[in-house]
C-alpha cells in the first residue's frame, strides 16, 4: 500500500510538470500580454517591464527559470492584478473563501443528492420517482448562471430573505452554495438512482430477503453499501472542482474566491497567477483522485488497487 501511494505521488509530480509546461506554452501562444492596456505604454517602458520580469528572454529559458523557481516554492509575483504581490500569498488568501463555500456545497450535494436517488429507486416507476427524475433532469440541464440569477431575484431582491452579495454570516452562504451544489446534487441523484436500481436487482438482495432481512434494512445495509461505489468515483473530481471555486457563483454573488480570480487572471494575462492556479487545481484533482482510489479499497473489498484494473 505505502509503495503504491509513493508510486502514485511520483506519477502525480510528473503529471504536474507536464501540465505546467503545457499551460506555460499555451498561455504564451495567446496574443497580448500583461502590460497592454487601453493607454498603451511607450516601447521603452514596455521593454523595461519585460526585462524586469524576465519576459524578454526566449520561451524555453523562461520555462526553465519558472520551473526551477517553482520547484523551490517560488511561484513569482502578480504582474498586473495585485502588482508585485507573491502569487502564493494571493492563493492563500483566496482559496479558503472558495473552500468554505465549496465544502458547504459538496455536503449539500451529497446529503440531498444520494437520498434523492435512493428514494427514486425505491419507488421506481411511481409518482415520486417521476417527480424526482424531472427535478434531477432539470438540475442537470439548467446552467449555473440561470440558477444563480433566479435565486438572486427571488430570495434576494423580491423576498429580501438572503443577502445578495459577499460572505457575511451564514445566511450569505446559502445561495452560492446551492448554486454550486445544484448540478452535482442532481447528477449524484441520477447516478445513485441507477446504481441503486442495479444493486436492488442483484442476487444478493434476494439472498437477504430469503434470510428474512426487512425492506428498509435491505436498502440501507445491502443495496446502498454496494450502490455507493460508483458514487464515490464521482465525488473525487467533484470535490476538487467545487472547492476551487465556481466562476459563475462567485461572480454573481460577488465572492472574492479563487474561481473568479482564476478567470480574471486569464483575461488579464497575469502569467504567474494563471500558472499557479492551474497547477494548484491540477494538484487538487490528482490528490482527490488518489483519495478516491484509496477509499475504493475501503468500500469495495473486491478491488485490489495495487494491481491493474482487474478484480
Amino acid at each position, binding site marked *: 500500500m505505502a509503495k503504491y501511494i509513493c508510486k502514485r505521488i511520483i506519477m502525480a509530480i510528473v503529471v504536474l510538470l507536464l501540465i505546467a509546461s503545457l499551460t506555460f506554452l499555451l498561455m504564451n501562444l495567446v496574443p497580448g500580454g500583461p502590460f497592454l492596456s487601453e493607454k498603451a505604454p511607450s516601447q521603452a517602458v514596455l521593454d523595461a517591464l519585460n526585462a524586469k520580469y524576465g519576459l524578454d528572454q526566449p520561451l524555453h529559458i523562461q520555462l526553465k527559470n519558472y520551473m526551477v523557481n517553482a520547484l523551490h516554492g517560488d511561484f513569482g509575483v502578480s504582474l498586473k492584478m495585485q502588482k508585485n504581490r507573491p502569487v502564493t500569498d494571493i492563493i492563500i488568501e483566496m482559496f479558503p473563501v472558495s473552500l468554505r463555500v465549496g465544502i458547504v456545497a459538496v455536503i449539500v450535494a451529497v446529503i440531498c443528492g444520494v437520498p434523492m436517488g435512493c428514494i427514486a429507486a425505491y419507488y421506481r416507476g411511481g409518482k415520486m420517482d417521476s417527480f424526482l427524475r424531472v427535478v434531477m433532469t432539470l438540475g442537470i440541464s439548467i446552467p449555473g448562471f440561470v440558477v444563480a440569477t433566479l435565486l438572486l431575484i427571488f430570495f434576494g431582491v423580491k423576498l429580501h430573505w438572503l443577502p445578495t452579495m459577499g460572505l457575511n454570516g451564514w445566511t450569505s452562504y446559502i445561495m452560492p452554495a446551492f448554486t454550486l451544489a445544484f448540478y452535482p446534487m442532481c447528477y449524484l441523484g441520477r447516478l445513485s438512482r441507477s446504481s441503486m436500481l442495479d444493486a436492488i436487482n442483484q*442476487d*444478493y438482495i434476494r*439472498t437477504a430477503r*430469503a*434470510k*428474512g432481512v426487512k425492506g428498509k434494512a435491505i436498502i440501507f445495509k445491502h443495496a446502498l453499501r*454496494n450502490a455507493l461505489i460508483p458514487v464515490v468515483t464521482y465525488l473525487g473530481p467533484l470535490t476538487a472542482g467545487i472547492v476551487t471555486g465556481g466562476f459563475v457563483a462567485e461572480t454573481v454573488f460577488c465572492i472574492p474566491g479563487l474561481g473568479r480570480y482564476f478567470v480574471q487572471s486569464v483575461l488579464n494575462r497575469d502569467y504567474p497567477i494563471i500558472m499557479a492556479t492551474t497547477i494548484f487545481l491540477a494538484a487538487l484533482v490528482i490528490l482527490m483522485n488518489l483519495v478516491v482510489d484509496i477509499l475504493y479499497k475501503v468500500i469495495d*473489498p*473486491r478491488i485490489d488497487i495495487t494491481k491493474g484494473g482487474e*478484480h
Partner: protein
Amino acid sequence: MAGGDKSNNPVLLQVENLKKYFPIQGGKGNAKWVQAVESVNCFIRKGETFGLVGESGCGKTTLGRTILRLHEPTSGRIIYDGEVIYDGANGKNQPNMLPYRRKMQIIFQDPSASLDPRMTVGEIVGEALDIHNMCKTKEERTNRINELLETVGLNAEQSNRYPHEFSGGQQQRIGIARALAVEPEFIVCDEPISALDVSIQSQIVNMLEDMQEELGLTYLFIAHDISVVRHISDRIGVMYLGNMVELGESRELYANPLHPYTKTLLSAVPIPDPEVSKTRQRIVLEGDIPSPINPPSGCRFHTRCPYATERCKTEVPEWREIEHDHFAACHIL
C-alpha cells in the same frame, strides 16, 4: 434420498393452483403479463427430495421462489406444515413470512452473485442468526458461525474473508452454510450445481445428501440436468411452459412416463453406452417453446405434441392422478 420409502411420510408443503404472472410494459391497466407459473398443484412430503425438471424458462426457478414468497404469488394457495402461508383469496393481507424464513430456505444458482460482495463470510452467515435472534452472546454467535463453516467443509479462519476470495465451489458452500444457519426444515435448491465445474458438482450433491440424512431436511431440487435429478430425487415433477405436466415417484416416472413431454425429455437424456444409444428411438420435437406471454390455448404443449388432437387446442387438460401417486395433465391419458 433414493434409499428408504418415504411415500408414507406426512405432507410438508402443499401448493394449490399457484400462479405467478410478471407484468411487462411497465404500465398499469392494459399491461401484458408473463405467465411464468400457471396453476401448479403439487405436494412435498417430509424428508423427501422433490426434483423439478424442465427446459430453461419453463418456470422452475420462479416456482421455487414463489413457494418461498420471494416472488409474491399472483393467486393460489401455499400451505406449509399445516399452516397457510399464502392464500390468494385474502388479497394483500398475507401472513408475515419472518417465522417461516427460519423454516424454509433457499440455495441459489449463482453462488458468486448471491453473496453480498461487501460482507465477510462471517457477516453473511451471522446476519441470518441476528435476524432470528438465534444467539444470545457474541461468543455463541462466533462458535455457531465457525461450526456452520466447518459443516460445509470450510475453515473457521476463513470467516473474515470476503466472498470473492473463494472459488465457485467454496462460494456455494458459503451459500449452503448461510441457508443452514437458521436450522431450516425445507430447502429449495435452485440449480445449486449448474454454475459449478463438473468435478465440484458431485461434491456438492453428496454434501447435500449427507446433510439431508443428518438434519432430516426436505429438498425441492431444481435442475435441468435430468440425470442428477434422477440420482437425488424421491419424486420428480416435470414442468413445461409454466405448467406442471407430470409428477411421479422417481423410478416410476423413468420406467413409465405418461405425458408426451416427459417421454420426449427422457428420450433426450444421453446414455453413456453407444449400443443402447443406437437402438433407442429419440423423439424430436418440432418448433420452439412458445412465449409465456401468449401461451397456446388449451393444453400449452399442443403446438409441439405429436399426439395433439382438436380437443387439446381448446380445452385445458385436468391435473389428475392417473395411477397411484402418479399425476399428469393430458387429454389422451
